[in-house]
């Protein structure tokens, strides 16, 4: 009995906090997505499905597609850069390994706005990249990269690369080198060993890293705003505009609810894939 009493004391604050300040707010945004927009930026409490119908407008489907494909490309690029990096790091001499890992983590602890802003300095017309180009190749046309989808893509890869490297490193570091040697001793080529032994064994890291990159990038708001100059719309900016300048809260709520659904579907798929990769390893 006393044990139950103690458990209740430990759990009460978190349950209270989560219900009041997380679950009820989520329900509130869900409720907002079904009501009408008022004339002066307010709302009218009449039930409507119009906000969801608008989502299937060509315009918003296009924006949705751009967000999802940009996040997918960002995830793929992070994996492409991060996998060989983590692989090499996991085999580096232990003395220096932690220092190198620390160097990966430092940018992650730095303010995201500033890390994104740094790319403005690099990419703008009179920026570092163009100065460098002009120095290397005289009379070259400066590249107009800032405020384009390419800049957004670079910014997203930059912002979330550490999220890919860390889980990859964690799973590659635990990898039993003996298994790879065994595969090679039994006559597998290095390439075959890599694809049939190393990759499947590091699958949990690949999945975790992909999820950690995909989820924040699909709803990204700062990067498109600063590096895209607000000229290219992504779902995050559109949501922001509904709440700040357009004052159409019901539609913004419907959009963010959709965003949450995409992310939750992604999360469920992730756990499924993780489960099946673990099952496979056991057999």
């Amino acid at each position, binding site marked *: 009995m006393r*044990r139950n009493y103690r*458990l209740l004391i*430990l*759990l009460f*604050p*978190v349950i209270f*906090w*989560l219900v009041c*300040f*997380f*679950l*009820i*707010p989520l329900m*509130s*945004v869900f409720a*907002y997505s079904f009501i009408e927009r008022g004339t002066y930026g307010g709302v009218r409490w009449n039930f409507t499905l119009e906000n969801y119908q608008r989502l299937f407008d060509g315009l918003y489907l296009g924006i949705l597609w751009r967000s999802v494909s940009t996040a997918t490309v960002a995830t793929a690029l992070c994996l492409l*850069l*991060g996998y*060989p*990096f983590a692989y*090499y790091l996991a085999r580096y001499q232990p003395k220096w390994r932690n220092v190198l890992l*620390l*160097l990966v*983590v*430092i*940018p992650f*602890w*730095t*303010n*995201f*706005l*500033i*890390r994104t*802003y*740094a790319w*403005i*300095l*690099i990419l703008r017309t*009179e920026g*570092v990249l163009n*100065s460098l180009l002009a120095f290397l190749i005289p009379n070259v046309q400066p590249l107009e990269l800032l405020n384009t989808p390419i800049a957004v893509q670079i910014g997203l890869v*930059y912002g979330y690369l*550490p999220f890919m490297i860390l889980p990859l490193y964690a799973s590659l570091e635990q990898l039993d080198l003996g298994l790879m040697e065994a595969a090679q001793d039994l006559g597998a080529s290095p390439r075959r060993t890599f694809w049939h032994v190393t990759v499947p064994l590091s699958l949990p890291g690949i999945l975790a890293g992909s999820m950690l990159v995909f989820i*924040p990038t*699909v*709803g990204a*708001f700062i990067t498109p705003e*600063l590096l895209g100059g607000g000229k290219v719309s992504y779902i*995050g900016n559109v*949501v*922001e505009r509904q*709440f700040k300048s357009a004052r159409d809260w019901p539609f*913004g*709520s419907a959009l*963010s609810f959709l*965003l*949450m659904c995409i*992310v*939750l579907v992604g*999360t469920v798929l992730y756990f499924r894939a993780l489960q099946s990769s673990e099952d496979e390893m056991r057999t």
Partner: protein
Amino acid sequence: MKRILEINICLVFLFLYLPILAVVAFSFNSGEQTAVWQGFTFDWYAELFADADLWRACRNSLMVAGIATLIATVIGTATALAIERYRFRFREALVRCLYLPIIIPDIVLAIALLTFYVQTRMPLGLTSLIIAHSVFNIAFVTIVVRARLQGYDNSVEDAALDLGATEWQTFWRITLPLIAPGIIGGALLAFTLSIDDFVTTFFTAGVGWTTLSVHIYSLLKFGITPKINAISTMLLFNSIVFILLFLWFREKGARNSSGI
């Protein structure tokens, strides 16, 4: 093959650090607006120290992050203890629900809270910010403290109880000191995330409560000035100090627990 991997390492580090180095370098550049080096100066730092708005924003950030971290550390530690030490019916459901605030995109959490505040007629300001920050901080503190609780064996506690310590004494003198590095680590992580948070703050701050991130954002939207480079460099320096502190506590914790 090894060569390719080495080149990749160098490229990734270049990619990670070139932008940061550019910001630091330009914070000492006396030329305005250009990417050309025009001589060394501390002018931008002087300007930064004279900026009253910036300091007010700094103070606001520290206040929000400090109080939100305190709340999250207490609630998060209690939650971690409950999850790791007890078996109860809704344990799995609680774990899932607990991590939801950090799984969903920050903009969704921000908007959910904004609509909630407006509906409950709660004024936007210090309180609304502290609540918003503690919601995502609780999850991070719980993760770090749970990891710590899983890492040591609780036979030490059983021993204390067997030797006649009361449960209360055991908690204060055995459990708490043992998980302290986890609690401090979690608190430092929460504090950093709070200071850095922009999206949640941007939506739930209201007009009067500008935090450092929101202040920087408005500066960036207004136009790029060398002062921003100076602010960024200061913040970078802070992050490095913080991460070293975090690692030091973790290291110290690891040594303490292995000494027992």
